[in-house]
Each structure stands twice: as structure tokens, then as C-alpha cells.
């Protein structure tokens, strides 16, 4: 009888734990099988066109890179994956070193992040991977520092958009190159605005005015944010206030209170609403139940403008301008010198003006270089694409999510706290105190 009971206990234990173990079952995902290293056709340097480097090739010629295969893990899907594959195929065909880049789709961002974490533990990271900085803090020591490459073997690092350069230096060294970047823009119902004689708001005050008119005339909310933490961060910066750093909250001051006051004002007066059960504001605006919302520039394709015209504007500003930048960078993990050089060739290719322009136009992401924005090709494209126009107009003011340890927890805590306070229709001081507490509880442990 005792044995039976013991067995029952053990079985119960097994059942109870199967949740946790079910999750950690992914184990170490070994690298996907590499297709045999077939050196691609070598084309003479002179004939190969835009794919490889054009200017500043003194260093290139005698790099002495041997043919090899580079593993690149990504999380792109559909159109974006198609475009990435097309670009990569082009590189594989045209590079003079016989480098083959092997793409592996690891699923969605969550999956890619988990796989990287797991492989970091097993020391089986790929050569290159897409990554958000705040995934990397736990294993940032495995990142290859790219400073030397940038200094010696890159045409013009300053041509990379400033916000992206800053983001890729968050660890104190150059950790990666920007890749699929987007930004938050203001999508609005142009038809409704025109009808009410309104134009897209550019400042905090203008937003308040617009919101009042919309509420009075249409009875719906004027604006919403998919990402509450992002909203908070941007507004703090727009008000000239600090956000957070490793030591804790930087907004426990007058300017912080002002910002929170403005935010709670919007929500408590019914000018702004939470996304709630509708999950994404693209749904809400498509049903014309909200006049505008702030969301990622890549979200434009999810909006169905049926019987109304979609307008896109940059984010509002107060004393400063600030716009959230989103999207990953490509980071390098290879320990092998030859592979590092080979991988760098690929990165140069991807971030070249031509590649980034083609990428942006095909996928709806943003070019990573200023020269790409100003190129004729892209300017022509922008004439037909209001989203990119809005993005470009705020490209000098990009801000990125913080990436130090605990930053993910902090952003989640901020979003949850804001949501809770908004649901409670709290006042500004209560909200500010709650936010400060939430942040400091995590960072000052």
C-alpha cells in the first residue's frame, strides 16, 4: 500500500511538473544542418555590381577570406522573409569570396529569443542573428565587438541613422548593425479629420484640442497607444525628462509629474482609451471606433481603410521631439576569425544604401542610412507612401528601449501599472508614485 501511495505521489509530482518541464524541453537546439560548403561562383571584383562594396575598397581586396558558410538566424516571415531570402541569394551569388550565408527562420521573435538563450547556455550560437538588445544582456559577453570592423572596413558609419548608431552602442561597444527598423507613427483617419476641419496634431496642446473636438462631434476617443511603456518613455523625453537607467527611475520630479498629468488627463477625460479586448488598435481604427492611434510603422498593412483615407503623421512633441524606434539589429557571435570577416562582408552588403533601400521599399521597414532616405529611388517611393514620410520626418529623434538587465521587467511593470491606474481612473500623483515604485522595486533590489 505504501509503495502504491509513493508511486501515486511520484506520478502526481510528474504531472504537476510537466508544465515546467514541458517548457524547458526545447533543450539545446543544435545548429541546423549546414548545406555543404559549395563555393559560389567567383565573379571578378570589377564586374560584380552594387552588392559588394563600391567605395573604400583598399582594405577589401587583400582581406584573404576563405570560402565558408555563415549561419544567420532570423525571425522574418511572409513578405519580409521573401525579401531577405532574395537579398541573401544575391549576396551568395555575387560575393567574390565564396561565402554562403545560410538563413534559418526560427519562428517569431519570442522563439528566436528563447533559442538564442538556450544556445548561449550550450555555447552553440550561430554566426549571426537578429536580436533586440534587451535579449542580450544575459550573454552580452558572447557578442563580437564590431568596433574594429567599423573603423577599418566600413564606408561611412555616420551615414547610419544616429538613433541606430546609439542603440548599437548601448553595451559600451558596437554590438551590431541595424536591420529591420521601424518606428512608432501616428495613424489617423484623414477623412474624419478633414470632415471636422482638423489636421494631424504636432504638439501636445494640439492633440488636446483635436481630441476635444472629436469627442464632442463623434463621441469616440481620439487616440490610443498599443505600447504603453513606449508611450511613457517617448512622452518623458518629449517633455525633456529622463526615463530610467540601471539605478532606477529618473522621472520622480516635476517634469515627470507633468508628463503623467498630461497622460492621465487624456485617459480620464475619454480622449484616449486602452486597447483592451480588441488587442490591436489597427482593428479599432479599421472599424472607425477611434480617430487615431500610435503604432509601429509596419502595422500599416493591418489597417483596413474601407471607405476612409488613412493619414500618417509623426509623433507629437512638446519641448523636444522623440519617436520610439523598434526592430532588431544583427549581432555577431562567431569566434572563428575567418567567419567573422565573412560575416562582416554580408553585414556590409545588407546595410549598403542600395540593399537597405530595396529592403525598405519591399517590406515597409525603414532604411537604415540617411543617404538611402535621400536617394531618388526612395524619395519617389515616399511620394506614394505616407508612412515612410512620417517616419523620415522624425528620423533624427529616434529613441530606443533600454537594454540593461531587468529592463524587460521594468517595461512590463510600467505597462501594467499604467493600465491599472488608467482602469482605476487615478490621479496624476498616485500614478506617478505607483510608476516610480514599480520601477525602483525591480531596479533597486
Amino acid at each position, binding site marked *: 500500500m505504501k509503495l502504491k*501511495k509513493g508511486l*501515486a*505521489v511520484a506520478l*502526481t*509530482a*510528474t*504531472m*504537476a*511538473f*510537466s*508544465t*515546467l*518541464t514541458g*517548457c*524547458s*524541453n526545447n533543450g539545446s537546439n543544435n545548429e541546423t544542418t549546414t548545406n555543404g560548403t559549395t563555393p559560389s561562383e567567383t565573379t571578378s571584383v570589377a564586374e560584380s555590381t552594387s552588392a559588394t562594396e563600391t567605395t573604400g575598397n583598399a582594405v577589401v581586396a587583400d582581406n584573404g577570406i576563405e570560402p565558408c558558410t555563415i549561419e544567420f538566424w532570423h525571425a522574418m516571415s511572409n513578405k519580409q522573409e521573401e525579401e531577405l531570402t532574395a537579398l541573401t541569394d544575391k549576396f551568395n551569388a555575387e560575393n567574390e569570396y565564396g561565402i554562403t550565408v545560410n538563413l534559418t527562420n526560427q519562428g517569431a521573435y*519570442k522563439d528566436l529569443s*528563447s533559442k538564442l*538563450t538556450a544556445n*548561449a*547556455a550550450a555555447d552553440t550560437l550561430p554566426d549571426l542573428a537578429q536580436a533586440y538588445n534587451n535579449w542580450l544582456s*544575459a*550573454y552580452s559577453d558572447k557578442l563580437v565587438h564590431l568596433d574594429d570592423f567599423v573603423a577599418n572596413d566600413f564606408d561611412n558609419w555616420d551615414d547610419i541613422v544616429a538613433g541606430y548608431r546609439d542603440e548599437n552602442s548601448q553595451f559600451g561597444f558596437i554590438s551590431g548593425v541595424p536591420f529591420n527598423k521601424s518606428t512608432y507613427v501616428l495613424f489617423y483617419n484623414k477623412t474624419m479629420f478633414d470632415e471636422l476641419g482638423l489636421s494631424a496634431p504636432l504638439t501636445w496642446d494640439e492633440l488636446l484640442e483635436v481630441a476635444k473636438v472629436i469627442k464632442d462631434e463623434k463621441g469616440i476617443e481620439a487616440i490610443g497607444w498599443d505600447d504603453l511603456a513606449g508611450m511613457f518613455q517617448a512622452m518623458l523625453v518629449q517633455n525633456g525628462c529622463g526615463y530610467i537607467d540601471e539605478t532606477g527611475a529618473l522621472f520622480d520630479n516635476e517634469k515627470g509629474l507633468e508628463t503623467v498629468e498630461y497622460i492621465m488627463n487624456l485617459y480620464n477625460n475619454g480622449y484616449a482609451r*486602452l486597447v*483592451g*479586448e*480588441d*488587442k490591436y488598435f489597427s482593428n479599432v481604427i479599421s472599424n472607425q*471606433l477611434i480617430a487615431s492611434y500610435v503604432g509601429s510603422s509596419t502595422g500599416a498593412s493591418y489597417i483596413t481603410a474601407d471607405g476612409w483615407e488613412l493619414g500618417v503623421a509623426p509623433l507629437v512633441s512638446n519641448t523636444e521631439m522623440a519617436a520610439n524606434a523598434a526592430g532588431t539589429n544583427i549581432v555577431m557571435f562567431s569566434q572563428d576569425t575567418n567567419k567573422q570577416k565573412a560575416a562582416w562582408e554580408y553585414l556590409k552588403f545588407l546595410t549598403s544604401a542600395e540593399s537597405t533601400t530595396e529592403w525598405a521599399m519591399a517590406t515597409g521597414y525603414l532604411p537604415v542610412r540617411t543617404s538611402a532616405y535621400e536617394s531618388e529611388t526612395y524619395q519617389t517611393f515616399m511620394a506614394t507612401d505616407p508612412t515612410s514620410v512620417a517616419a523620415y520626418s522624425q528620423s533624427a529623434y529616434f529613441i530606443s528601449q533600454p537594454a540593461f538587465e531587468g529592463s*524587460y*521587467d521594468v517595461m*512590463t511593470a510600467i505597462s*501594467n501599472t499604467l*493600465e*491599472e491606474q488608467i*482602469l482605476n481612473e487615478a490621479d496624476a500623483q498616485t500614478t506617478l508614485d505607483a510608476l516610480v515604485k514599480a520601477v525602483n522595486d525591480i531596479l533597486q533590489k
Partner: protein
Amino acid sequence: MEKKSMKGYIYLMPALIVILLFTAYPLIRAFLMSFYEDYNMISGEYSRIGLGNYKDLFGDKDFTKALRNTSIYVVFVVPCSIALSLLIAVLLNSNIKCQGLFQTIFFLPYVTSVIAIGLVWSWIFNSNYGLLNIILSWFGIDKVQWLNKPKYALPSLIIFSVWKSMAFDILIFLAGLQTIPKDLYNASRVDSTPRWRVFWKITVPGIAPMISYAFIMGFISAFKVYNEVFSLWGGKAGPANSAITVVYYIYDKFYNSHNYGLASAAAVILFLIILVLTIVQRMMGRKK
């Protein structure tokens, strides 16, 4: 005799290895990890071994919320779904027309993906054009913000889960009802037994083992609730985390916050709770 038992072990070996590797080992690891403070799973470093994670756990408002939510959830979902399932099974067992059709309808939730069900229910619960609010409006009740307001989060989750777990319970109760000899019901008719007494004195004792099974399994799986939360709110745990459950907490701490020690500690607590509950239930069952 010796040869025979060796063969038995060899046949068992593959399954045993799998269980040991993928269940027993992670189990032990998780238990150990719960005592590693500031554990970095990638480097394998931890600051010290101690009860720090447990202290953090019980100091974490989210965890106490998760415990509370999960307990309320279990207390409501399990008895409600079993009671309703029993009633429906009894109805299905009586001679109604199209019995097969009804059985299929009631069993559908079990074979449908929980994500798909969650999508449909998030539409049903939608405050503006959801089915539930439309029906309520016929009775003059105002729009309820089922999925938007924290105070309705748990009720929505409970309604959804009761509906979902009925399928399996109905099935096993139906099977059990079929084993009750028809003559018992005839005898009860001759004995002028009122319907409710037939139910309590004949039907329920007849399927008592099934009911007990449903309770134990129900409690265990209700404590592990996660899929339902995920699918109802598309990955979030309700507005302002109002529907956070223990497993959701574990998952979030492990995969999003990378706080492996804390997540393991939470998992150990969950394990202990379920263990105690199950032992108590089995003891109660044995008494009868």
C-alpha cells in the same frame, strides 16, 4: 524466473529512459534551481544557495495575486463544471431524440484547439458586438466589459473554462451512466421514487468512481491553468494582469524575465500545493 523479469526490464527500458531524462531529471533540476539565488542559466553562475527566491516569491505582489486567482479559479471551475456535466450527461442518457447528435455537439470542445476556442470566446465576450452582451441586452442589462475590466476578468475566465472542461467530464459520466443496470431505474419507478431521489440515491452512487476521478483530474489541471488565459487575452494575463495564474507567472518569469531561480521556486510551490491536495482527496476517497 530470473530470465522473465530481466526481459520485462528490457522492454521497459526505452520508456524508462525517456521518463528519467525528460521528466525526472528536469524535475530535480527545477527543484535545485529554486535554491540558486541570482542564477544565470547561461553562465551557470549563482550568487549563493538559499531561500532568497522563496522570500522574493512571497514578497511579489504578482505571485500572491496569481495564487489567489488560481485558487478562486479552481474552487469555482471544478465543482461547477462537474455539476453541470453530470446534469447534461443524465439528460443525454435519457431517451431523447437525436442522442448521437447532441453527444457530438457536447464533445466538440474537447477536440477543438484551445486557441481557436479562445478566439471565438473573445468575440463572444466582446463588449461591443459580442454574443453575450447582445443576449444580455434583451434583458435590459447594459454592456458588460467582460475582457476590459479587471473585476470581470476572472468571471470571464471561469465561464470560458467551465464550458471547455465540460466536454471531457460529460463523456466519462455518460460512459459511467451506461454501466448502471436499467432494471434499477425500473425498480425505482415501481418504488415510486421521485426524480431527485433517483438521481442522488441511484445515479450518483453508481458513478461515484467517475465523479471522484473527475474531481481529482479537474483539480490538478485547473491548478495548471495557462492555455485558457493565453487564448482569451491573446498572450496577456487579462487587463492589468488581473487574470494572472501561477503557471502564467512561472512562464513569464522564466522566459521573459529570465529569472530562472524565481520561476523554479514558483513551480515548486505549485507542485507542493497540487501534491497536498491530491493526497487529501485520495484519503477522503478511501474513507468511503
